[in-house]
């Protein structure tokens, strides 16, 4: 636990300074075929300071949280900023003052479970899978939690404290068919601590049964046919599309580095039925998976409406990029660890639901695919994207057909978005992954089902 109020260090600042004290607490348990392969906990905490001087930054961090090291890191960060300023002489103006305050502690009110409790919880899941599905060649059950606790103070007067937890259980099932191995994973959980998300193992059994059924069908599945196809993206895919293929191209630092989106502001980039938002903390009246109230530069976080009715409206900004573009910062500056500087990151990026029913969307396709789950994704400055697909089905004459084997889809997002003709009226969030930029950080992504045309790999 860290001190929530660090305002006592206010008199140590001589330049624009952000002071952050942070602790990240991780827990990981993995059970492979009944054996506990991993049983780990970690805690990393420390203090960091970042100082701005006329267009350049200095940063320093130290794992020891004490009055003396707070002084040391502020001094070292200031010296680093002065070192660069002496050589670079950019003479940029100070940022317009922006002050944010918040205190948000999302820790559970319930009695905390012990490591033994959580191991028992996982073992019950593992035991269920072993007994129910003896034909599996391997099974893996993993528990992972991350608690990010931060206290921030800036020389402008921003003051914030947050404790944001995320808890996940992964199950991965392996099956062999005609000597060929097949795998399918699922992720359960999200925002919150274990006690608020998982009550009893049996709650997951039905979902695991569904996971097994999909795997069984995948093992009997067909290869996709390479080429452009009519597809329905499930919410998982819509979320990763929003994050990877579009979101990254409209981060202001990527825009400044040559993203194709630089030339698209206020232009039609998507079908008029598409609206996409990077939510700060609350979406459609519900809390988001990764709530950010004040970012790590001290800016009060606001939603960034990226695409509205198909028109590209804005970029995600930190203080420096906002100054460059002459707009307000959006509160997207986030750091993963105490030893990381804040950089522009997405928070909870989602495409907003439309008016169509999923069954009507599937019924509208004669020959195509329903793509439900992605393994990984990557996007480019051109908005060209690639997603690995690990769960999906053929659509033949408006009905779901054979399952498909693992494949890859690709396209140019700003072209592909214009092919979207239907958007489902519901949506789902996921926050199982870590987004990699300079640092890894948890993000939320979500969306409805989308009907579109996309390039699919295959034999």
């Amino acid at each position: 636990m860290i001190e929530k109020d660090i305002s006592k260090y206010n008199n140590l600042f001589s330049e624009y300074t952000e002071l952050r004290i942070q602790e990240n607490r991780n827990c990981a348990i993995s059970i492979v075929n009944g054996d506990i392969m991993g049983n780990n906990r970690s805690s990393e905490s420390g203090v960091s300071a970042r100082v701005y001087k006329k267009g350049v930054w200095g940063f320093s961090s130290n794992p020891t949280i004490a009055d003396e090291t707070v002084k040391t890191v502020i001094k070292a960060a200031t010296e680093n900023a002065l070192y660069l300023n002496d050589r670079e002489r950019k003479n940029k103006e100070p940022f317009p003052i922006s002050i944010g305050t918040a205190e948000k502690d999302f820790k559970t009110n319930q009695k905390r479970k012990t490591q033994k409790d959580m191991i028992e919880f996982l073992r019950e899941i593992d035991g269920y899978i072993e007994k129910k599905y003896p034909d599996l060649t391997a099974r893996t059950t993993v528990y992972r939690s991350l608690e990010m606790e931060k206290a921030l103070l800036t020389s402008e007067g921003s003051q914030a404290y947050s404790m944001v937890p995320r808890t996940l259980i992964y199950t991965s099932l392996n099956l062999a068919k005609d000597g060929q191995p097949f795998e399918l994973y699922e992720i359960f959980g999200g925002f919150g601590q274990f006690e608020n998300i998982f009550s009893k193992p049996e709650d997951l059994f039905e979902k695991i049964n569904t996971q097994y059924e999909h795997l069984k069908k995948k093992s009997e599945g067909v290869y996709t046919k390479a080429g452009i196809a009519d597809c329905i993206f499930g919410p998982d895919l819509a979320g990763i599309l929003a994050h990877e293929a579009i979101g990254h191209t409209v981060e202001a630092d990527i825009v400044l580095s040559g993203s194709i989106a630089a030339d698209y502001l206020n232009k039609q980039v998507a079908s008029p039925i598409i609206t996409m938002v990077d939510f700060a903390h609350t979406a459609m009246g519900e809390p988001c998976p990764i709530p950010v109230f004040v970012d790590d530069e001290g800016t009060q976080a606001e939603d960034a409406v990226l695409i509205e009715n198909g028109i590209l409206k804005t970029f995600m900004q930190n203080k420096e990029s906002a100054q460059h573009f002459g707009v307000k910062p959006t509160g997207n500056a986030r750091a993963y660890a105490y030893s990381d500087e804040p950089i522009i990151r997405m928070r909870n990026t989602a495409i907003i639901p439309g008016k169509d029913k999923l069954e009507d969307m599937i019924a509208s396709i004669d020959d195509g695919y329903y793509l439900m789950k992605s393994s990984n994704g990557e996007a480019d400055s051109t908005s060209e994207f690639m997603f690995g697909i690990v769960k999906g089905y053929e659509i033949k004459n408006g009905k779901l057909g054979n399952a498909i084997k693992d494949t890859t889809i690709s396209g140019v997002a700003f072209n592909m978005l214009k092919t979207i003709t239907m958007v489902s009226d519901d949506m789902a969030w996921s926050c199982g992954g870590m987004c990699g930029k300079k640092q890894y950080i948890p993000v939320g992504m979500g969306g409805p089902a989308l009907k579109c045309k996309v390039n699919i790999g295959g034999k």
Partner: protein
Amino acid sequence: MKSDRELVKYCIDRMLTKGAEKAQCYLKYNKKHELNVDAGEMKLLRTTFDTSILLKAIINDQKGDLKINKKDEGSIDRAVDQVIELAQSSLPDKANDIADKQPPKEFTSGREKADLDVMYDRLHDFVLYEKERYPKTMIDQAIVDFTQSNILIQNSNGVDFAGNRGMYSFSVTFTSKEREKVSSFNYSGFSSKELDKPLHEYASVDMLLKQSGEQIHTSAFPGKMVGDVIITPDCLSSFIEYITMYLYDYSLISGSSIYKDKLNEKIANESLTLHSYPRSPEIAKNYFFTRDGFEAQNMTVIDKGVLKSFLLSQYGANKTGKPKAVNSGGCYIVEPGTSDFEKMVSSIDKGLLLCRFAGGNPSDNGDFSGVAKNSYLIENGKITKPVNETMIAGNLAEMINNIVNISKERIDYGSEIYPWIQVKGITISGK
């Protein structure tokens, strides 16, 4: 104030006192100086200090692992109590163990301190060089850092190693642009004990910067075919990672590895020899011992196409009954072949120079598919034009059996050394 050696010994003794039958402590200090260029401008200087203490306790074959970054006595005592509780919470597994006693050793490589002025000058000169030489190309981010790592590892069997490494690293990500046309981004980098030449002269940095400008204007790959692909050293790194993934603990313990029964059998064309050389003087990003307490040795993973070693840890080896690797993998070196790169290109009527691969994670059976990024069409023995929206698909096991040629030329990244490799039988499909 305890010395570091006394601190590590204190951790082990306390774990034993609290009930551990076997105990290991790993202490690491990192001091890093890092200069950042963002969007083509020198922007940030970072100085960071970090401490990691990893405790491992085994009680009745039950294991717990704990990591903290504090070394005051109160934090250590709490951490010891927690790791004992973790071990007691676990299940017995006879595969849990710690390394046997080996002769104590201290290892050192690289310089002790960063030369900040050299780092600044090299990065500053790089930015100027890049802007002048490649005006259409923009640096998204370029980072030079120097990291000094000091590691101690001891266990209750008497293992006692110390390792000290100083190393510079450079990474650069860039994109080229002309009016509204943008290239795919690309990246390069290297590790080195010294920065004794301009940054663009290391590894593939200058070659990829030059290519980036060419990749603003791309063409579709014509049609769909099964044919030859030349994998560049930068791209080979991804494929080596995919292949070696099947040799590590998880893949072999879960039984999903395609190579689980292939030790000492031919798994690749005989032209392929893959070493893992963490102790080679050729590798700046080296390591001296493994996280589970064994002195690291150089080894050959694939020798003339024959699988000679898995990459199993002590736990993985105990669990599977297969031999433990003598290192933790990485530091890969692929032996050069006999062909000139130019001759490889001239041998292909129609194919692809695969410069970067953005793909889905390969399936358990080795199938892969994805997008050929920053890549070129080869026609009539010549590299003709950069391609867009081109997908490739194949199977990793088949691919390394279908190696046609390996180049004499290689690129040294300081962390790996790779040649160009020509393979056949890859499905290539244009838009």
